[in-house]
């Protein structure tokens, strides 16, 4: 069991928001109950339309996306998806997105008394319409404000998901913690771009998108390590995980659990393999997760197989 500020996971593997939808399609391929937690797609107060296509592009060992947080809104989630997810015993984490601090607060309020939600994950990598579209997650004051607003309306575990597009991730993490976050998750995508040289047009209709996949793993790992070194708060690590060795890197750097995004789009079945391989590794090395989590930060190096 892994305990994340009261959120109990039977293993460290979670889905990453936006890459596993609301579970219905993935459930066809993967037993959701074998996962540590299921994180749903970013969900807003009203339905969001999303961006025009082309919405994805490939880059070296990675991909760019500009889905634009298309989602059917929290009402649809409550009436259609939540009942489906309640059939499973896997902890369900709802990722919420808003365009103002109020929207985040209202979302938390709306979800508060719903059965079958283990935690909220607050995605602060959203354009703040009031502040001219800059992302909430790039300003520590706004991160704190959003976190506080959700905290006031939510008493179960509260996760804040950080944007990596910042000068100082520790400062942002600290703001979230001060605002009342129980857990931090990171990283969301790095802002990136690709151009079609046959025309000069950006490949994505939206121009700039979010980079994910193995290409970003070193940056994600560094940020997890920095937060684990500076702040005392449980972390969920993600960014480019493809193998159980990648998971171990994140856990050693300080993550108590991890989320898998892009790799699930490519090979959904790998989620189950990861769970198995990790357990095999843990047992054959005779260690407990508590010893592994953050060992690089503590400098307690060992010899593992």
């Amino acid at each position, binding site marked *: 069991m892994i305990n994340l500020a009261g959120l109990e996971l039977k293993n460290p593997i979670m889905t990453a928001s936006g890459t596993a939808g609301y579970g219905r399609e*993935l459930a066809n391929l993967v037993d959701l109950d074998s996962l540590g937690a299921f994180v749903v797609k970013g969900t807003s107060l009203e339905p969001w*339309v999303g961006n025009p*296509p082309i*919405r994805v592009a*490939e880059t070296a*060992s990675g991909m760019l996306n500009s889905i634009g947080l298309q989602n059917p809104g929290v009402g649809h989630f409550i009436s259609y998806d939540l009942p489906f997810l309640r059939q499973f015993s896997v902890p369900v984490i709802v990722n919420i997105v808003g365009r103002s601090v109020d929207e985040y607060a209202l979302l938390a309020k709306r979800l508060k008394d719903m059965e079958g939600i283990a935690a909220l994950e607050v995605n602060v990598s959203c354009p703040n319409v009031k502040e001219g579209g800059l992302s909430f997650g790039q300003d520590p004051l706004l991160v704190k404000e959003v976190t506080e607003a959700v905290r006031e309306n939510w008493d179960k575990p509260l996760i804040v998901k950080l944007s990596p597009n910042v000068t100082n991730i520790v400062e942002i993490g600290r703001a979230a913690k001060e605002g009342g976050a129980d857990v931090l998750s990171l990283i969301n995508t790095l802002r990136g771009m690709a151009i079609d040289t046959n025309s000069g047009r950006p490949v994505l209709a939206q121009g700039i998108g979010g980079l994910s996949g193995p290409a970003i793993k070193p940056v994600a790992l560094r940020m997890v390590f920095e937060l684990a070194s500076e702040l005392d708060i449980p972390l969920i690590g993600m960014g480019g995980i493809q193998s159980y060795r990648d998971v171990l890197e994140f856990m050693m750097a300080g993550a108590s659990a991890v989320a898998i995004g892009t790799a699930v789009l490519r090979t959904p*079945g790998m989620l189950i393999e990861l769970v198995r391989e990790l357990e095999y590794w843990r047992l054959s090395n005779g260690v407990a997760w508590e010893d592994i989590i953050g060992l690089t930060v503590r400098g307690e190096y060992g010899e593992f197989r």
Partner: protein
Amino acid sequence: MAGYVEEEARVLVNIEINPGIYHLKIEAKEIAKKWQPGQFVNLLLPAGMDGIPFLRRPFSIFMASKTEIGIVYRVVGRGTDNLTQLVKGDSLNCLGPLGVPIKRKIEPSATTLFVAGGMGIASIAASAIYSGGMLLYGARTESELILLPEVTGGLAERMLISTEDGSFGTKGLVTDLLPAILAVEDYTGIVACGPRGMLKRVKEIGERYNRSVYLVIEERMACGIGTCLACAIKAPEGYLRVCKDGPIFLAQEIVL
């Protein structure tokens, strides 16, 4: 729902049938069993050292037997280029069958007219064969026509062919044949697959003659199963998913 699987398939045949066009047959038992006309597979193609193609690539299931599926593909980029290198015995990770079977949108029958442009044939040949309806099939030139026995055998006299340069069949665009046929025959539904320009034209003509038009859409994909929302196609309100809500749509469902 029929359900889909992630299956490690085995390559049986992978040959160039026309310049730059290949016929791939793979043993994929589960997918072959579940497949219904109109569905596709999302393939994890061999990648280069930059990892590209990083995402899967969607291909229509052209034809399926009990244990095998056939795909016809044109080499257009890195992924399809790498695909040509696979030989008998190689394994290939397939996700499928995906997408709505055609009969959940329209029950194909003798009164369904099929229109295929270029590689569009790969997506609707099977449906056309089972329907008993007619197929209009156009390509740029003779060497681009895919006249595998699966097509010619199954469709026999129910197929009209056109080429832009007149090297085979009627000369001109496949859509040029449409008005004359609709004027005299009472096909109630039209199913079309091909380039966007062609689809627009079919829609226009179909509406003029007051027929139900169904379009098979291609769009870049990532997951192929409906979770990531990469494959958006504009709808009158918001977007639909080509992989999950399609790839076949009633023309009014979408904005071309």
